[in-house]
């Protein structure tokens, strides 16, 4: 790839629109209330309050992760017997019935992905706050991966939605949703927003020795 300029949009006084990627030359880069002339959306040099917002969303997600795992996500009522299922016991059931592939998919999507996302984003935010210059390309890839994988945690919520719609044969067999599902969905949405509010460009700003946000 040729024609590389060793400078960024920010330090050459240019705003890049996040929606349509148009470059806007500005005399004062920190101009407030600027909108993109092409797509009419508000433009900022960097996402506003990026680190604080990401932190807030991550903490909220971490707190809700506890009820998401403690409370049942659904209850099966069959012949008068109730059996409650949490995220972990659901995966255990799948392992018991020898559904290894599905069990591993659910284990990854519902247990590992949320924890991994929260840990990875916290690491990225801390790395920016401490001004780390360690392996930026790796951290850029990590961020891209976190952004991509986050939505897949919704598998369990969709599974419950299918089960409660399908299994409603009164006393014979009925499946009801549980409060754990509500907390779990909140975790997924909060972490999706957390990765959206994080501005990966901040990692590269630190490499150039810029401290201000």
């Amino acid at each position: 790839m040729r024609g590389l300029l060793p400078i960024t949009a920010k330090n050459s006084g240019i705003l890049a629109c996040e929606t349509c990627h148009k470059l806007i030359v500005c005399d004062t880069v920190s101009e407030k209330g600027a909108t993109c002339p092409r797509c009419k959306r508000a433009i900022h040099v960097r996402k506003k309050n990026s680190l604080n917002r990401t932190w807030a969303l991550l903490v909220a997600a971490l707190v809700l992760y506890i009820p998401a795992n403690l409370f049942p996500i659904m209850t099966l009522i069959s012949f008068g017997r109730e059996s409650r299922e949490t995220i972990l016991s659901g995966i255990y059931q799948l392992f018991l019935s020898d559904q290894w592939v599905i069990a591993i998919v659910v284990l990854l999507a519902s247990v590992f992905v949320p924890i991994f996302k929260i840990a990875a984003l916290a690491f990225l935010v801390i790395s920016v706050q401490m001004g780390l210059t360690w392996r930026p390309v790796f951290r850029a890839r990590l961020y891209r991966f976190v952004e991509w994988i986050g939505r897949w945690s919704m598998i369990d919520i969709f599974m419950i939605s299918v089960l409660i719609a399908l299994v409603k044969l009164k006393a014979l067999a009925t499946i009801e949703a549980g409060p754990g599902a509500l907390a779990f969905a909140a975790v997924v949405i909060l972490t999706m927003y957390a990765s959206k509010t994080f501005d990966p460009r901040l990692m590269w700003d630190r490499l150039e020795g810029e401290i201000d946000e």
Partner: protein
Amino acid sequence: MRLACPECDLLHESMEITYGHSGYCQRCGAVLFRNHKNSLDKTLAFAITGLVFFLLANIFPILVFKMNGNTEANQLADGALEFLNSGYWPLGILVLFASVIAPLLVLCLLVSILLPLKYNRLPVIPELQIRTLLSLRPWAMAEIFVIGIMVAFVKLGDFAEVGIGGSLISIICMVLAMVLAFVFLDRRTLWQRLDQLK
């Protein structure tokens, strides 16, 4: 024409690359643009295909559940409605939005933007349409919904008889069409096309 990397802000001189290849950021490796032959035409074709399968997905049941002579079948929006009925309305709204409304809106927006462009006309409100499309995209979770259906299918198979309905195949086809539509959609080509027409 220069462009800035959306993920690390590095400025690049715009370069011409051969069809079928992508331009990556020199510094962080993010995809800057993809150069597909007839990018917008291909996206339009797949979006229309997706819409047809979306309609089919609403006609038939997704799964059929049989137990002791009783049969129950579910359709696309039933899970969301069941959440609403049982008092978990935030989950009902979330599932309805992610598995039905957002995929439908995304496909409709793609067609409403690309069909006029195909005939050299400007869409009604192109800026708003494209902005809505881009912000809705992560919330259209039809592909994840399909995996959720499969997990439910396996789980139920343990204690009852479960069959696959016609809608499941339609949903899978819709997901494939939607994924391909976005594979071929290049934002840069789209905005350049709009700029040309203005």
